[in-house]
Each structure stands twice: as structure tokens, then as C-alpha cells.
């Protein structure tokens, strides 16, 4: 299953190759042109049926949050730093895969019996954590692992509950999976599917991809925070799981193009697809750099809600995922229709 393969592939920002290779394999038969740019973005073109030169860009990022090797202890443990935004508290007592060879390792913590009572109340800092790969000493560890090796969460794709899945990196392999589907259809306009790198460290890949494509409009397909869990008040729910794809109004990096956002919302309503607005203004995504490219590009964001995002156990509803996929398709079909009508006039 593609979503399983995509989420179990490791692609910490700056190291997206495993994910890129899967995507290339999936889209190769469908595109007129596939290029990989100097940063590692995939820019796939599905040529339009008309020569009007109109370009629509879909964007989903391939990278995920993770860790990177920064050193070794004399006794052969690995020191690391986070890549992207990670709450250090979720790292304790977790399994990881180190480097290209996916070497299993664990982030341990000294036993509860050895802790002082006040120690137990404090969050463990990343600088005090380390990864155990079973190395005998520093030399032994250095034979298997190098400085700068990327480290991903070790977490399998697992369906559970009421049509939910647990996996790592649903943010944004869910978006990647949707773009892979979208590129299979042909429209009147040129459709560019951009699978971007380095979103989690500052929206780096999308910036250059959008510059290359220079689209007339863009839609970012994301996995976004879903905070409908105990501890959060209802008005603090950014999105609610199972209430359909979420449409952004604004966040820290952009205002969504109002017409496009309203269009997405009304298309969903007209077609009986559950839909919600993302209710918080925190965070940001590739739309932040895409909409400021060149002379400015009308851009909107649609997201699949993910609970426990940026952890090894993010959770999404398959219903939301399917709804998101349908809505992106309806969006493209709507644009297709209006562009054709414009031409006929």
C-alpha cells in the first residue's frame, strides 16, 4: 500500500531520497516531464490539453521532522540534535533508525529507580539524551555511523480504531500520496505537481520550486495540527479529526487567497464532502513562500488533520484523507472548467 510505503520511508529534511525514489517510481508513467532540481525537489509536469500556457501548481513536502547525528560518547552512544520542530518530551523511550542502513537504535533514559524525585518532574533536555545502537565504544560506533547521518523514528504504518491510521510522517506523506493521484489526470491547463524538500526547516524547497514553475495559482496539500484532544479546550482545536479536510485562512506565514479558500469550502459543501476551516493561526507551510514568489501567486492550503503531529505516532482519519483527495480533484476540475469557459468566450 502506497501510504504505508511512503510513511515508512525515511526522509528527514535534507535527506529525502527514499521518499523521492518512491514518488518517481509512482509518477514516471504519467508525466510529460519530470525534473529534479538542484535542491532535490521533484517538479512533475502533466501537460494541459490546451496551449493557453496556464499553470496550476500543487505542492506537498516530502520531508519529515527527525534527528541528526552530532557526535559520540566515549562509550559508543550517539549524540544528536533535532531537525525540525520536535517536542523533546516525545523522544524519551523511543525506537529510531540511524542512517541510510536504517540501523536500529533506542533513546533510553536512566531507570526511574535512579532518579531524584525532583528530576522526575522536569522534562529531559535533548542535550542530555543519547541513542544506544549497542556499540562497544566510540570506535565501534564510528564504524557504523557518521556525523551528519539522519535519524528517523522507527514506527510502522498501522490502521486502528474507527478508520484511523497511525504512522510517522503523515505530515506530509498524506499530501504526497494525494499529489501522486492528481498527476494521473489531464486538464486543459498545465498541472505541476511539486514534491518539495526541507519544508520542516524553513519552507526551503518550495521557494525554489515555485520560482521555477511560476504558476498562475497554487494549492498546498498538507498534514496539519489536530488538537482535539484532552487538555485542549474546544476553541483551541485547530482542527477536529473526522470533520474532513481543513482549509487555512491564515497562519504565521501567509493569508490564503480568499477566493480560492472560499471556492474549496463551497465545492466541498456542494458535493457533500465534510470540510472545516483550520481555526488557529499558528504554524506555517509552503504556502508562505509560494505566495510571495515572483510578482505574487494566489495560493491556498488544504490539509488532512493529524493528531500527535511531529511524533512517531501521528494519527489521521482515512475519511479525512479521502475527503481531501476528492476535494483537490474537484478543485482542479472546477479550475479546468472555468479556464475552458474563459477561452471559449
Amino acid at each position, binding site marked *: 500500500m502506497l501510504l504505508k510505503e511512503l510513511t515508512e520511508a525515511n526522509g528527514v529534511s535534507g535527506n529525502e531520497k527514499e521518499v523521492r525514489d518512491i514518488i518517481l517510481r509512482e509518477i514516471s508513467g504519467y508525466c510529460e516531464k519530470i525534473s529534479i532540481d538542484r535542491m532535490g525537489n521533484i517538479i512533475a509536469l502533466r501537460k494541459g490539453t490546451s496551449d493557453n500556457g496556464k499553470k496550476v501548481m500543487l505542492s506537498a513536502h516530502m520531508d519529515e521532522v527527525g534527528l541528526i547525528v552530532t557526535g559520540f*560518547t566515549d*562509550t559508543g*552512544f550517539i549524540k544528536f540534535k533535532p531537525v525540525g520542530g520536535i*517536542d523533546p*518530551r*516525545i523522544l*524519551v*523511550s*523511543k*525506537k529510531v533508525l540511524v542512517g541510510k542502513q536504517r*540501523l*536500529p*537504535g*533506542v*533513546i*533510553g*533514559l*536512566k*531507570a*526511574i*529507580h*535512579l*532518579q531524584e524525585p525532583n528530576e*522526575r*518532574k*522536569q*522534562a*529531559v533536555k535533548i542535550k*542530555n539524551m*543519547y541513542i*544506544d*545502537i*549497542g*556499540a*562497544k565504544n566510540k570506535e*565501534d560506533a564510528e564504524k*557504523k555511523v557518521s556525523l551528519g547521518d539522519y535519524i528517523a523514528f*522507527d514506527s510502522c504504518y*498501522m490502521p*486502528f*480504531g*474507527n478508520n*484511523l491510521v*497511525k504512522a510517522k510522517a503523515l505530515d506530509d506523506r498524506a499530501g504526497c500520496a494525494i499529489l501522486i493521484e492528481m498527476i494521473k489526470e489531464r486538464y486543459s491547463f498545465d498541472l505541476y505537481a511539486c514534491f518539495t524538500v526541507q519544508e520542516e526547516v524553513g519552507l526551503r524547497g518550495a521557494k525554489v520550486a515555485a520560482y521555477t514553475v511560476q504558476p498562475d495559482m497554487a494549492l498546498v496539500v498538507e498534514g496539519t*495540527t489536530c*488538537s*482535539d*484532544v*484532552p*487538555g*485542549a479546550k474546544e476553541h*483551541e482545536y485547530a482542527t477536529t479529526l473526522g470533520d474532513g479536510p481543513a482549509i487555512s485562512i491564515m497562519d504565521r506565514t501567509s493569508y490564503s487567497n480568499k477566493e480560492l479558500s472560499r471556492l474549496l469550502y463551497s465545492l466541498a459543501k456542494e458535493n457533500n464532502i465534510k470540510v472545516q476551516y483550520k481555526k*488557529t493561526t*499558528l504554524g506555517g507551510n509552503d504556502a508562505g513562500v509560494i505566495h510571495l514568489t515572483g510578482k505574487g501567486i494566489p495560493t491556498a492550503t488544504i490539509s488532512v488533520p493529524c*493528531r*500527535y503531529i511531529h*511524533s*512517531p*505516532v501521528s*494519527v489521521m482519519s482515512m475519511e479525512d484523507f479521502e475527503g481531501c483527495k476528492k476535494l483537490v480533484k474537484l478543485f482542479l476540475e472546477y479550475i479546468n472548467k472555468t479556464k475552458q469557459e474563459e477561452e471559449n468566450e
Partner: protein
Amino acid sequence: MNTRELLTILSNSTGVSGHEYAFSSVIKQAFEEFCTSVYQDATGNIIGIRKCKKEKTYKVMLAAHMDEIGLMVKDIDDRGFISFTNIGGVDSRILLAQEVIVHGKEDLFGIIGAKPPHLQTEEESKKAVEIKDMAIDVGMDAKKVKELVSIGDIITFRSPTSCLLNNYLSGKSFDDRAGIICIIECLKELKNTDIDVDVYAVATVQEEVGLRGAIVSTYNIEPDIGIAIDVCHGETPDAPKEDTHSTGKGPVVTIGPNIHPKLVKKMFSIADEYNIPYQKDVEPGNTGTDAWAIQVTRSGIPTLLLSIPLRYMHTTVETLNFNDIVNTGKLLAFFIKNLKGDLEELLCY
């Protein structure tokens, strides 16, 4: 039998204190390969007896506990999230983003979550999240959850065993399934050899909540020598060196009031004689293991304690070196082979 594989199976099995029955058949089966009889007592302990050819001889009891720490359902909220409490010593700091199995009418997969980080104040995010502020998400609505899950249901961690480098393994309940494998290693070593004592292999229950299985099984067996096999703290960068032992350097043999002084000397001399690596540990009082209960059973039992160094005890990634298990099994076997004739001299003060 591949004991390394068996350890993986045992560690992946679920058996929180008081609920060990879920996998007792696996242990029974493993004991049966080497024992003349195997039975389960009223408390749930599994006892395998390996009789020797001699009539009326000494009884040596080997005990390792089969239970593990875990969690228990406390409440279900009106959106289906489950609040919980701990069974045994659980550090709340290991719980966030952990995978669990809720053992309701069906086994339900779940995830431990809490207030999302972006909603927390800077002050809050520096603190460990307390168990009372966490909840398990089984991905179903409240009606369904309440149908399948009851207050008091058991919750176990889901953390399949990983193989690390150099024969290191990492899993959720090597404390003390590793001890059970040591006993099996010992029985394997004793297979087809003539020994002078009867060996009682015991997988005890409810150690984590008060050494309860050891209390009744020792009373029941009435051994002449009781040996507990448990885990001790393995060396790691964040743990005080004086509280830990090296992994991969052999079993740790405890000395102190819990331990019979002559027997432990014999254990050391056997290890030296057969070149089995070992480490010494001094415990001035309660060892916190089955050995503590065994020693004061009936009129008193000469007791020993062997431990396997284990990193990150009571987490979901407990890590050990399998060579330590093999060496512990060997040491036990050679010790037992050398219990010959009249042992009164050895056991008296």
C-alpha cells in the same frame, strides 16, 4: 530451541502483574522441553521440576518473574479518551507518544497523548507531563469505547523487540523475561547430565507489586537453596556509575544480608574455575527482588541473587547484551552440577 528468539517472543508478550496468564502457556511449553513435570499453582506461578536420579535429595529453586509493569484504565471521557494510572514503577516521562494495547473485551491499539505542545506555555513545556494529564486515544467514539473497555482493564506497552549491534537487544519487558531465559539456558546446559539435586524452575507472578508469586511458590516448594535471577541497572551516560554495572561483562552476583555467605563464595569459585565472567554487587539491605521474599520463607532458605545488567529499566526500550544471559545460564548450570553429596556443611553457618 533458539533462546534469543524465545526472549523476543516473551518480551513481546503481554503480562502485567496479576495478568500473566496471557502468555503462561509459552513458558510452560519451554519448561516442558527440559522438565519431568510442569504445573501452574493457584497464584499463577509456573513451576517446572527437573528430577535427578537420586531419591530424597536437595531441592534448588531458580526463580525469575514473568510479570511486567504497565497501566490500568481509570476512566473514559465523553469523547472516548481513556485516562489511566500505573501498575508498578512507571516514569511518566516515557509515556508521551507511546503505543499501547488496551486489554478490554478486545485488544485495542492506542496512543498516549496530552495537551499539544503549541498550546502549552513555555513554563509548562519545561515540565514533565503528569500521568493525570495524559489520555489514551483508541480512535473510537465514547459509546464504542465504553462498550469494549471497563475501568480497571489492563494496558500494556507495544514495543516489539529490536536487535542492535553486538548481540544487544532492546524490548519492553526484559525485566524479567530475561531471567526466565537464563533459567532455560541453565536447563539446556543441564540436559542429559547427571546431577545430584532436583531443580525447580519457577516463573513467578506479581513481583513488581510486592514479590507475591515468590512468597507462595517458595513456601510450596520448600527448597534447600533458592536462587533469584533478575535484572540490575546497566551502565549508561546519564546514570550514576556507582549504581550500575557494565553490560556484556557477565552476570552480577549480589553480596549482602539477603545472600547466603557460603553459597555466594561457592558461586564465585565456580565462576573462576570455569572462566565465566561475572561482576560483584554489594546490596546492604533489601535487594527488591524475589530473593528478598525467598530468604524468609518457612524456617529460612539459603538464597542467592544473579542479575543481568539492563539499561533503561522500566522503559519500553530496556536494553541488554544477550551474552550476559548465556553466561548467567552457564554459571547457574555449573553451580548446580557442583552441588554433590551432603550439602549441610555448605548451607550451615
